[in-house]
């Protein structure tokens, strides 16, 4: 089975891309269990807990990351360098993603045959 990596780099709610990436990850999980998700760059903002996007008429999709475990998506990583660069390394994340450095994530991505970067 080919391993697939999903890389997500968008701040949530400014566009629908972050939400649609989550949809794509959940849909793909039906086809393979060998799937990894990497939150890098501005993508780390997607993991901030207690988002209230109802005020700007967006769907609160962050709690849905909690479904990853149920869908057997266990390889979920967040870039600690991205968190530090944004002054966000001490904030509460909505899921318990593994914290990896930029270079560790780079290494990890290279172990996947399919790489989808959003």
């Amino acid at each position: 089975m080919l391993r697939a990596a999903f890389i997500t780099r968008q701040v949530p709610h400014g566009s629908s891309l972050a939400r649609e990436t989550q949809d794509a990850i959940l849909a793909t999980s039906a086809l393979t269990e060998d799937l990894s998700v990497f939150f890098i760059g501005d993508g780390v903002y997607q993991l901030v807990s207690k988002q209230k996007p109802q005020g700007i008429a967006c769907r609160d999709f962050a709690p849905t990351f909690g479904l990853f475990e149920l869908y057997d998506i266990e390889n979920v990583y967040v870039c600690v360098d991205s968190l530090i660069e944004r002054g966000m390394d001490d904030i509460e994340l909505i899921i318990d993603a593994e914290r990896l450095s930029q270079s560790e994530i780079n290494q990890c991505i290279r172990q996947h045959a399919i790489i989808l970067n959003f």
Partner: protein
Amino acid sequence: MLHIIKSSPFSKSTFIDSLAYFNDGDALLFIQDAVVMTASQHKYAKILQDLLPKISVYTLTEDLDARGLKCILGQQVSYLEFVNLTVSHSQIQTWN
């Protein structure tokens, strides 16, 4: 002049590009993904801090709340205050 900035400084160079066009007395309003500018300490927030108080800094509350973020720099404004800012400034430019 009121400058409205809409993009994250980490993903696009909008904020850096706009820097040279700020004059004393201007106001900056961060909306949409640009609310990350005032939500935590980082290199762009530091640049912004150095502009205070010659430049007024505002961030839209609804966009902060949407992302679970809190404003630590300048003032938070509601949609209504956003409208008031656009009325009280004769010149406005939006930086995409």
